[in-house]
């Protein structure tokens, strides 16, 4: 019989803060298997985040906008620095790169449907572009990854933008992996790999290293696509200030910064939880780099990693982002971790709200799987509707906050509208601790 918290307190049982039950379970698991734990999702540890910031709504010194009468626009233009055809999105929330392979075909289709319904973009992932995804996506960003799985110039030309991926927040400095359970015949064919193997993706591009080479590579991509497509550069958040500066120098039209809360389909737990910096810490670093180069708002900044609510969207923008990208939240909107699958999650030794074994391909929701029976459970039309609804809510929430701060466009939000409720967040976000004019390290 298990003890309740009260029982433990009465018996004087004390759990170690250092060796808590999760740590003990991890040590037992390592001792039994001899190999590190691989899982999906992003960092699960508590981190300073957008929740630690608050908006200063208008009152005497600022003039708010009428919530249901006065316009608060949300459109954003991405990639107008060099490209002939920049993206004109209706909302500043985009869908992050997630691969067909990691996700089922119907799930990718739903991401395209949902994004298109509200006038925003979705993104391919490792393994290339599927016709279903292209067909259902009004704006599709094509990821150009180190593995080059499925990479071909025809798809490059079909894309609306190209994202050169250097890393992602869940595993900056790491390559990808897709375990054999998910290397179906179609996935294997797209990636030119044997079926059923545990696939590795390289962590470095095969034909360039360093920022000088990247300049030449970006120029090649522009030449191949006749300077039509915006070129994004995506980095996992680490040395963000330097990475963003180098990306701009290399010619990026858009820089994507993915914090450590950003998701993954399969990565070592130790990597997810111990490499990279929080999204909150990365945004001001990226903005500082852009401002010093005098390209803030000319080279757009997309921020991802733990965006959940319209408040997160508004806070990222207020700190200087032009748009955000969502991955994990989009999957949840599709139905991932929904309580209706509780009994099946339990069969997998997990539970609704905890399921992160995306690498296994056993997802009861039919999202992170290549099993035809599981994938068939997922309705891309319903998934697309759910995602579109969620994106609308994020947008309306961000507008609500922007109006309260007196802004006629969400992009008019600024750091001056924010305060922090913790010293850590104040230092990272470079906004004052609430009720003070103190910015740690600055004032």
């Amino acid at each position: 019989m298990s003890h309740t918290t009260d029982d433990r307190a009465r018996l004087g049982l004390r759990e170690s803060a250092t060796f808590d039950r999760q740590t003990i379970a991890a040590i037992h698991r390592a001792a039994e298997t001899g190999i590190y734990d691989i899982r999906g999702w992003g960092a699960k540890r508590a981190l300073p985040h957008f929740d630690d910031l608050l908006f200063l709504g208008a009152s005497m010194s600022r003039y708010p906008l009428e919530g249901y009468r006065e316009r608060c626009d949300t459109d954003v233009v991405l990639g107008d620095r060099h490209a002939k055809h920049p993206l004109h999105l209706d909302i500043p929330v985009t869908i992050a790169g997630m691969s067909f392979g990691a996700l089922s075909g119907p799930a990718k289709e739903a991401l395209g449907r949902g994004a298109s319904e509200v006038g925003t973009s979705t993104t391919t992932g490792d393994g290339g572009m599927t016709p279903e995804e292209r067909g259902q996506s009004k704006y599709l960003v094509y990821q150009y990854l180190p593995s080059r799985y499925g990479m071909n110039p025809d798809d490059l030309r079909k894309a609306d933008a190209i994202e050169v991926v250097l890393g992602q927040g869940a595993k900056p400095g790491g390559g990808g992996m897709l375990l054999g359970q998910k290397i179906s015949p179609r996935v294997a064919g797209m990636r030119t790999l044997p079926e059923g193997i545990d696939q590795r993706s390289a962590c470095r591009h095969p034909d360039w290293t360093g920022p000088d080479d990247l300049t030449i590579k970006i120029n090649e991509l522009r030449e191949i696509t006749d300077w039509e497509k915006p070129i994004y550069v995506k980095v996992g958040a680490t040395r963000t200030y330097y990475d963003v500066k180098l990306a701009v120098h290399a010619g990026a039209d858009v820089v994507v910064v993915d914090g450590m809360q950003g998701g993954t389909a399969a990565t070592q737990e130790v990597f997810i939880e111990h490499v990279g910096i929080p999204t909150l810490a990365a945004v001001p670093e990226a903005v500082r780099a852009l401002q010093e180069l005098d390209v803030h708002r000319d080279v757009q900044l997309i921020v991802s990693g733990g965006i959940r609510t319209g408040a997160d969207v508004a806070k990222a923008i207020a700190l200087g982002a032009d748009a955000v990208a969502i991955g994990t939240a989009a999957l949840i909107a599709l139905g991932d971790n929904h309580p209706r699958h509780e009994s099946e999650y339990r069969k997998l030794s997990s539970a609704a709200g905890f399921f992160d074994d995306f690498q296994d391909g056993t997802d009861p929701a039919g999202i992170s799987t290549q099993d035809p029976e599981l994938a068939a459970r997922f309705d891309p039309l319903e998934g697309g509707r759910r995602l579109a609804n969620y994106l609308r809510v994020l947008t309306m929430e961000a507008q609500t906050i922007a109006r309260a701060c007196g802004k006629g466009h969400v992009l008019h939000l600024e750091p001056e509208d924010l305060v922090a409720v913790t010293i850590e967040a104040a230092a990272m976000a470079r906004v004052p601790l609430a009720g003070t004019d103190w910015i740690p390290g600055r004032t």
Partner: protein
Amino acid sequence: MEQVRAFDLRAIPLRDVNSALHAPDLSGEFVISHPDGAHSVAVGMDAAVKVTVDGHVGYYAAGMNQQAEIVINGNAGTGVAENMMSGSVWVKGDASQSAGASAHGGVLVVEGNAAARCGISMKGIDIVIGGNVGHMSAFMAQAGRLVIRGDAGEALGDSIYEARIYVRGEVASLGADCIAKEMTREHHQELEHLLKAAGFEGDDTSTYTRYGSARSLYHFHVDNAGSY
């Protein structure tokens, strides 16, 4: 007979040259002179035409080629014919690193030597190198054939998947999971065909060794931890 169209890169911007080579319904033959080490020469071709580049080129020459027959009368910089899908690229001189990187199809011939990472991540291309290749060649090579008439540098075929490598000379060392394999009649015929297509038909195929994947690292397993 169709006219040969000439582009002088000292007189015409590269953008204009590549744009002209991307014209719909392109046909005929083209000569690009004075490349002077320019990057991205004749990239993104998608037409069954012949392009001759007279001189040395920089990075990514003939990158992502489809259908075109491209001859480089000189040396090529990093990533020549990277991600080629079809057609052919023929380098009369030497090639720098990452020649034929991640290419899915077509034929790349380098008459001289190729530097490090030749055929890295190759996905179906056939590459024939007249001389030697540098270290880490055919790293994570997935499909296609790499023929090396000279020597190979260290860590040849590291983490190779299903590509085939034929080497006539010495191999400094093999990478993880890459092993020498038997040359069957099929392999001799395949090699003979590849050499002939590249203009090296006099080679005795029995002097070559075939290398490929031991397939022991195809699944993550604790016993393999020391191999990665």
